[in-house]
């Protein structure tokens, strides 16, 4: 990447923000309809502690869900690779969970799971585990057949082929799935918070957005939205760096 290519997204962002601020000021748009960036920053500053606390709450749900999704997706993929029966059982239900909109099942989950924190985590896991599962399963199946032959020629047991060959071969696929799962976990957490609304355990960013909406504090709403977007970008970028570093050590790139 050249210097210009690296700076381009930031320059573009600043330019867009400037144009936005100018448009709001020149057209005299009231801040309760569309606030300018300056108003959003002011609103953020005014409720800094509350918003950051909300962000932390949402991120806690997100990372717990991401962690569980990684384990669940990996374990299910391994089970599917180890046994055709397991594959036949797991695959259709994984797809069912994937195609069911989480908004539609979140109320039920929130009703069933007593602990509000875990209710949110379960919703986020339902959204996030699928890319880990399907990517890892693809990777496990995509192992070069000659290597499988080599293992067989030397009398490898099935578990050795799975854990010494297929699993490490699937690592790049798993990491690619994890990266998608990271942003999906955030989306799942926020959707679940929205559904849960003020149902007693409201503390995440989504609740701040709802609350600000009710009170017509539109700049604060935008501030919360902005935090959410930044969190999403940060998660995506961090997982990207992480997986590149792991793959470099692993020897795949």
């Amino acid at each position, binding site marked *: 990447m050249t210097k210009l290519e690296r700076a381009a997204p930031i320059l573009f962002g600043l330019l867009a923000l400037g144009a936005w601020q100018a448009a709001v000021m020149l057209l005299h748009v009231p801040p309760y309809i569309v606030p300018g960036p300056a108003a959003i920053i002011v609103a953020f500053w005014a409720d800094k502690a509350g918003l950051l606390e909300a962000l932390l709450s949402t991120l806690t749900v997100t990372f717990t869900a991401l962690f569980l999704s990684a384990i669940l997706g990996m374990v299910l993929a391994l089970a599917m690779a180890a046994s055709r029966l397991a594959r036949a059982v797991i695959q259709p239900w994984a797809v069912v969970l994937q195609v069911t909109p989480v908004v539609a099942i979140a109320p039920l989950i929130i009703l069933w799971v007593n602990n509000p924190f875990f209710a949110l985590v379960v919703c986020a896991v339902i959204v996030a585990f699928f890319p880990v599962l399907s990517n890892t399963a693809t990777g496990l199946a995509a192992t070069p057949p000659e290597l499988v032959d080599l293992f067989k020629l*030397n*009398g490898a047991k099935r578990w050795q082929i799975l854990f010494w060959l297929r699993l490490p071969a699937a690592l790049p696929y798993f990491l690619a799935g994890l990266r998608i799962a990271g942003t999906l976990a955030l989306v799942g957490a926020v959707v679940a918070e929205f559904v849960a609304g003020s149902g007693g355990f409201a503390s995440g960013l989504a609740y701040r957005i709802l609350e600000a909406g009710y009170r017509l504090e539109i700049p604060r709403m935008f501030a919360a939205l902005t935090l959410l977007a930044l969190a999403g970008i940060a998660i995506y970028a961090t997982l990207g760096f992480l997986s590149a570093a792991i793959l470099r050590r692993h*020897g795949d790139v």
Partner: protein
Amino acid sequence: MVRLERVSRRFGDVTALDQIDLAVGQHEFVALLGPSGCGKSTLLRLLAGLDAPDLGQVSWAAGQAPAAGDIGYVFQDATLLPWASAAENVYLPLRLRGIDRQQSAPDVKRALARLGLQGFENAKPRALSGGMRMRVSIARALVSRPQLLLMDEPFAALDEFTRHRLQEDLRGLWREGASTIVFVTHSIYEAAFLASRILVMTPRPGRLAGEIKGDNSLSRTDPAYASLVSEITDMLHAVMPL
């Protein structure tokens, strides 16, 4: 040692091997020579037990059926574990048979050195050239001292210098060792230089067209080597008229 009887193998409409009759005796060095796509790799896979014939059978002499690790296989591509170092890749066949890492370290080192890879023990495959990767995969096949060594065009990707050295080495290895070798190649010169017995295959569907007795003690400049080469060439042209 092993015998193929009227062995055929089809893939859909493609007949890869058609009625192959072949017996490989102990301590032979057989070169399989034939045009691309005639079923040479398929034949090796049948010998290794990695694939089964549609018709006919593969049978082993009493007491000589291979156990795990008795067959060394060099694939057409290097097929190394990308996350493992050269030494770990060579150790793999021993590891799979439960042999201790410490105990096999000298064997691994020797196998790598034999292929001119000393100093690259800890290099990952991506840090090696194509030819070096191929040599690692040859070392991996040799490290377990297999009774039967199946090699699928192992030297095709190497430069002429390395190839000559490795051909010389392989001949030496065969002469001093107890291995039986079946060696697939496109090269008449290679077959003439290496093999004690040269089998020529027809274009698909692959059949055995003929057999020539080789002499793998000749040097490349020996007139007898030249006449062996021309004998093989004649047979190849008889099978595939220009």
